[in-house]
């Protein structure tokens, strides 16, 4: 009988082989699900999203009951972590919303235009310290339960022979600023005060790089999400994207690779226009993970032989489709994007109201 350690090593090896663009014994499956798992097992979303240890237990129980996964992208969930990415307040189930509704980012102009000057003069970490305390109701302290439960969640996952693949998130100043300023105000800033925004980004990225190195050296994950949401090509003119987005991703991704960690480019929305830029990144070291909006088949054409692709069973298919449709699409991905350099997963996150039989069909597809 295979021990869980052997199973863990076998699965990790399968994933690493895919990242290195070699052909594994079969395509790995590394999904991500949070509120879906709570709904699947009838757990209150309000508890799931505010008790990190519970979220880990529910995620492991949900996925192991649906089939055999090689890894999980995240192994626990904590709603307040979202505030640290988008510098925004949240509407939280059980507090601002009914117990079983999904949390939502409450985007208002919390970061002011004069904050750019503060960042330029005092540094980004100083700014964040003040911002977390005064505008996000002492967010720093609120994050403690997640940090305290984190090692236990990693261990519980490994104990089941499952790879805790990319359990943390970093991103670029654009995403932080866009969330803090709110998208409309931020895009106006890009037009009206571009030099100031860039100066603040240039200061911020240095602190983000240092924070990321520290995080990676402490946690030692196998991979980490480098997240992209509002920075997607579909939202921005090329001249803005080339100035405010790409140089910062390139910097942070190269730092992650230098630290021996796999950057998962978790890129939501449509990035098709700028896929060529991803070829500037180190070969066979990164994963491109689109959410169903980028043309994954075009991504294969462009990134073939350069970067592993992970994805992208679409949210709407997992919610409204049938197991047969999910199975057929998954097989198409395995054959056309894989079998080398490909990891099967949902696009972005399994939606809260996905049908469990559809998620099972996706997980089982790697064995067909």
């Amino acid at each position: 009988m295979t021990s869980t350690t052997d199973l863990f090593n076998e699965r990790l090896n399968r994933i690493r082989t895919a990242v290195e663009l070699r052909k594994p014994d079969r395509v790995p499956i590394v999904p991500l699900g949070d509120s879906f798992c709570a709904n699947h097992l009838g757990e209150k979303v309000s508890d799931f999203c505010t008790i990190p240890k519970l979220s880990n237990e529910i995620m492991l129980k949900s996925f192991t009951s649906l089939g055999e996964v090689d890894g999980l992208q995240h192994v626990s969930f904590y709603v307040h972590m979202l505030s640290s990415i988008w510098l925004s307040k949240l509407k939280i189930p059980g507090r601002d919303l009914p117990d079983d509704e999904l949390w939502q980012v409450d985007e208002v102009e919390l970061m002011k235009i004069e904050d750019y000057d503060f960042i330029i003069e005092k540094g980004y970490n100083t700014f964040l310290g003040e911002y977390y305390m005064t505008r996000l109701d002492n967010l720093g302290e609120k994050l403690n339960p997640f940090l305290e439960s984190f090692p236990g969640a990693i261990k519980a996952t490994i104990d089941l022979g499952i790879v805790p693949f990319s359990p943390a998130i970093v991103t670029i100043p654009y995403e932080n600023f866009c969330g803090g300023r709110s998208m409309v105000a931020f895009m106006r800033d890009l037009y009206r005060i571009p030099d100031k925004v860039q100066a603040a980004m240039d200061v911020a990225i240095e602190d983000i790089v240092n924070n990321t190195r520290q995080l990676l050296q402490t946690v030692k994950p196998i991979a980490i999400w480098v997240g992209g949401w509002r920075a997607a090509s579909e939202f921005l003119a090329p001249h803005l994207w080339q100035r405010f987005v790409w140089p910062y991703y390139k910097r942070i991704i190269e730092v992650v690779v230098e630290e021996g960690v796999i950057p998962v480019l978790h890129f939501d929305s449509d990035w098709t226009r700028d896929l060529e830029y991803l070829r500037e990144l180190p070969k066979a070291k990164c994963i491109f993970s689109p959410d169903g909006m980028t043309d994954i088949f075009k991504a294969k054409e462009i990134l073939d032989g350069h970067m592993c692709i992970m994805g992208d069973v679409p949210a709407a298919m997992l919610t409204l489709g049938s197991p047969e449709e999910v199975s057929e699409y998954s097989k198409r991905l395995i054959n056309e994007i894989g079998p080398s350099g490909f990891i099967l997963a949902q696009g972005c996150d399994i939606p809260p109201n996905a049908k469990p039989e559809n998620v099972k069909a996706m997980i089982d597809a790697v064995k067909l």
Partner: protein
Amino acid sequence: MVSSLSLNMADLKEDLVFAEITEQLNKNVPAEEIFKELQLGMEIIGERYQSQQYYLSELIMAADIFKNAAKNLQDKFQSTDKKIATIVLGTVSGDIHDIGKDIVSLIFTTNGFEVIDLGVDVPIQKFIDAIREHKPEFVGISCLLTTAFDNMKKTIETIKEEGLGSNVKILIGGGPVDKGTSNYVGADEVCEDAPSGVEIAKKLLEVK
């Protein structure tokens, strides 16, 4: 021939747009004419968006310039131009996302539609009341969350049950919304983005 004001609007040259509006007002050009030139600029912006010369970043900037410019003009209007149609618009109950819906509101407004914007997280009854009050040709329902599909379906079912479905066309849109969603919720049309929504609406009205 396209006027320089329309072109400056289309090129997002904010300072030049405001300078030219002031100059034209000083020359007693009717506010309605100036407004039409801005609308023409917005039409060019819509075309550039659809041909991927422009992106959301430019639509947002255009929206801001247009809104500020229109504010200066509207109180000077002599007559009220007849709108080509009315659309009742909102993000469905259970969803608080507003950016896509706001862009749709702007693009429809600048294309001559009267937009009744109900905001976000709109309860079904609010849609029903607005349809009864404004008698629109279109209802636009947006959502970004797949969890809101069921509320979208319920909203559309209720509109039909209340006997209001035959006089309005229901347009839906938003990140995860596709043809499959449309079949599920019972909408008339799916709009991939704001300019294509305008195109669909105009086609249904049989106007240019």
